[in-house]
């Protein structure tokens, strides 16, 4: 599973990354977590607000900091 955090590196992006790592760890899922900060790549997903969470190339959330419990439902 490939998980991408889309965002410029702002505090909310970092929070989403932390929550994502927590969700992956707690669920025991094997995942490659990547950060994407290039705006062109972010726009290619049609994402107009960040942070965004992408799992296996499907955008799961935009403009929100999901909690680990919410992220686990996608894993």
């Amino acid at each position, binding site marked *: 599973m490939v998980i991408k955090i889309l965002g410029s590196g702002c505090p909310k992006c970092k929070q989403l990354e932390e929550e994502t790592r927590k969700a992956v760890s707690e669920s025991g899922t094997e995942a490659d977590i990547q950060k994407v900060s290039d705006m062109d790549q972010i726009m290619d997903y049609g*994402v107009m607000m960040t942070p965004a969470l992408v799992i296996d190339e499907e955008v799961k959330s935009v403009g929100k900091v999901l909690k680990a419990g919410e992220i686990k439902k996608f894993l």
Partner: protein
Amino acid sequence: MSESCSCSCGVSCKPLLYACSGAANTGYLSDAVARKIMGNGNGSMTCLAAVGAKLSGFVETAKSSNNIVIDGCPTACGKKIFDTHNLDYKHIILTDFDVQKGKTEITPDLIEKITIKVESKIQGVT
């Protein structure tokens, strides 16, 4: 409409504009008006077709945004796409502004005039 702006990372909270961009004169007008509004700094255009195609990034963005759907005519393709996804939006139909589908010539003056009318309708949508 979203209760509050959920943007972060310094991205602006301008409403998102979805033009039907249909083949008729009214579709062309919807596209031209949306581009004009964006040029005036009162919104950001994004792709209605991508929402229709269920591209996840566009659908999820629409769930978190203040959306303006600009349909050229009462066929309302844009509205139907948004309703299919159960998305919130403000709806504009350009034939409500004395534009006749298949008849009215789309001139720069008309684009300007309709843009002003649409902008007055979407004021406060942030």
